[in-house]
């Protein structure tokens, strides 16, 4: 399933928007479905946004499961760097 972040949230800065993305992604995680998450035409993701979305999924399912289910595409260099920083700084549970 390919999901476009821009279709799910109105911004990528706040906890509230991060939570909206979490709700959308959880649906597929529960079923173990793979997701291709497109950053096309989105702004960079703030830490608050990531904490409420990706961070919650990492807590619930662990890093290995997350990596196996989510593929990030259409990212700019900055968006990619933000996510790299986020994963590098987290306590990644396998």
């Amino acid at each position: 399933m390919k999901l476009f972040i821009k279709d799910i949230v109105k911004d990528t800065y706040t906890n509230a928007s991060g939570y909206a993305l979490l709700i959308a992604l959880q649906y597929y995680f529960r079923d173990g479905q793979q997701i291709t998450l497109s950053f096309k035409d989105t702004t960079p993701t703030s830490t608050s946004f990531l904490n409420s979305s990706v961070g919650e999924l990492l807590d619930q399912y662990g890093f290995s499961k997350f990596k196996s289910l989510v593929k990030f595409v259409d990212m700019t260099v900055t968006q990619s760097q933000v996510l790299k920083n986020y994963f590098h700084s987290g306590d990644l549970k396998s």
Partner: protein
Amino acid sequence: MITLTLSSRSDFSKVFQLINSDLSSDNEIMYDLTNFSFFEPIDILLFTMPVIYFKNKKVLQRYRHPLKQQTRSYLSDIGLFEFCKTNFQEPITIEEIHSRSAMPLRRITPVTMNDYIFRAQRYFSNHCPLKDLSFLNLTISELINNVKDHAESPIDAYIFCQLYPRLNIIKVVVGDLGIGIPTAVNAYRESRKESILSDIEAIIWAIDQNTSTKSHPHNRGKGLNNLFEFIKYNRSIINIYSNKGLLLASKGRTTSFLNNIRDFQGTLIQMEINIDNLPDISNIEDDFWEQAQF
């Protein structure tokens, strides 16, 4: 009437001393800016935040404007005194200041920051259409979210941004008069029965990638660290004033000092984004997991 003569940044100590003295509303303050010759964005917030603070306390305030015509014009163009007079609770209007390549001084929260970020990116991208200004968005959102999550500021957060075309840098400054990073860090450490840190040590602790005060359930920290990582790649500069600490990170080197604005309470962060070092707008990375080498 209390006259505060301000001619350089360190003179703002006098203003913060007054804040700490719990001034009553029957007093009157005269800000004498006669000899203040050059305001950086950070000075704009150092001036604005106490004025708003005292305005909320119904203290009458007057200004003696700078003697230097150039400085007077600058303050007039950016609408400093007009802004302080109106004291908007929300950024009702956001209009770019073309004469100074600046985005206006505004009070914002996470709820109202989207419009400011959108307009700032659109405005500054006119000056550098091929560059990816995402780092600007990120800077503003991280700093405003930090104020909301940690600062307990009585006046929310204030922001001002200006492009310096000859230097090709954008200065973004966000400030608050909250509890300050050191207080938040030490309250957290105290709750975990860990030793109390000096203000400078506490700021260094806060930018470490594996630490956070986790002041809310959703908050895992990393916001400041995220900005620090970008400063390294982008060779930009960040100044963090928080309570008695001052931390300067420039081109990968971090230096800390005692804050020369004595009695400062709150946090003031100025980021200098080096436009030349931002990535081009067209760069798209393909396989994230492979590129990131996880």
